[in-house]
């Protein structure tokens, strides 16, 4: 069982949360080409290793926040609020093979 640290409520079981996919995806301008739109809508980094992702505390405060999590171990490496920049993780960033 994973536990997530909601920045507003504290540590709770994963069942209280919903996953919202990769963080920091920016919407392209209306002039974007079909390929740029496809990239925005569908393509994802899908990293093996440290992944910045959004979670929603649905059965709690009802707020969204960001998590840094290692997708190969499920280790939680950091939590930060929506709109905040991604914090650096010295020695941890990058993909594991």
């Amino acid at each position, binding site marked *: *069982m*994973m536990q997530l640290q909601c920045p507003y409520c504290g540590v709770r*079981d*994963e*069942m209280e949360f919903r*996953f919202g*996919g*990769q963080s920091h995806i920016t919407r392209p301008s209306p002039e974007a080409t*079909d*390929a740029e*739109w*496809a*990239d925005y*809508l*569908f*393509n*994802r*980094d*899908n*990293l*093996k290793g440290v*992944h910045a*992702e959004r979670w929603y505390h649905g059965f709690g405060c009802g707020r969204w926040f960001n998590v840094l999590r290692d*997708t*190969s*171990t*499920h280790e939680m490496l950091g939590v930060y609020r929506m709109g905040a920049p991604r914090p650096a993780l010295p020695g941890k960033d990058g*993909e594991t093979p």
Partner: protein
Amino acid sequence: MKGYSFYSILKHGMRRKPRWPAAWHDVSPQRSYDAVIVGGGGHGLATAYYLARTHGMRRVAVLEKGWLGGGNSGRNTQVSRSNYFWPESAAFYDRSLQLYETLSHELNFNVMLSQRGILSLAHSHHELETMRRWANAIQVNDVDSEILSPQQIKKLEPLINLDTRFPVRGGFIQRRGAISRHDAVNWGYARAASALGVDIVQNCEVTGFDLRNGEVRGVETTRGSISTERVCLAVAGHSSQLAARAGLRLPITSMSLQAMVSEPIKPVLNTITMSAVIHMYVSQSDRGELVLGGGADVYNSYAQRGGLPLLEQNVAAMLELFPVFRGLRLLRQWAGTVDISPDTTPIMGLTPVKGLYINAGWGTGGYKAIPAGGETMAHTIVSDSPHPLIRAFGLDRFATGRLVDEGAAAGVAH
């Protein structure tokens, strides 16, 4: 290759120490090939087999970073069906089921196909109405499908509890729906491909590509460089990672899909029973174990490990439908890293890199697709253009918007 037969089983069985010949040759990679298949799961092995068998290509290698069938092709719940909503999917998956129906003969390897029928339940009037439409669409696709009343369901599966919290109002069945033995499918393709001269290389990870002017010239591996002008990626959950090494971004998310088996009991289940609403499916293996599963753990993962909340939900849903199994113990639980695509339709065919082909996006349901996946990929690689059955499954559909949204139509996708 020595063929397997009743006589050969008898002969080896009579010996005090049976000496079965190795089913395939595990070889070291050569320096160049006509085609390199990355990934020794069912799709990679079947692609290599049809390249050799149908197209006469002899210098083919399958490079597998671990062992044969160590990925999802050896971890799944072995369900095959072709009752898909969209004509493109139905045509492809029914071709696959037809190939399964003769696969034991084709490969001279008993894959133990058991067409016991796949039964999907409806738990409300509205769901049953949707199911009627679905069953009708499937019939129009020329695939067998029948609506059943609760009484017919009870007759087919006497242990079922129809009076669940959301009572069973009916269902539909594809009687050709089947389970088979996944290891036999992997080993059967490996053995038959090896007999046709395909090199099967285990413990050989592809780490990069040799690209020149947007064309493939070779692959880098943990066992040296290999030159080739045709590479097919069939690496399931690792597709995004490997494609990134060729400069491509894919619409794929890797997640854990888990399954579990109970201790073995005498034969009590007749069908593969599934419910999209309570999200689980169950069948009984030839060894007597109940095999059950449900949805994926819905967050990115390469851990190959299923979460406990979903395990609990799967078991609870199964016990709601079959309270009689309450006293059973679970024997094993495991997971595989599945490659989920946005419309739950596979991604197959050409890529923007010339000579690089992709076979991915199978998500939770690519076991049933192994024979047709291999057959159509082999054709695609040889002719450098997509086989007619997979034309709708190209990577380019995400930019054109022509999705094949089976996810919305198909309920549980196994």
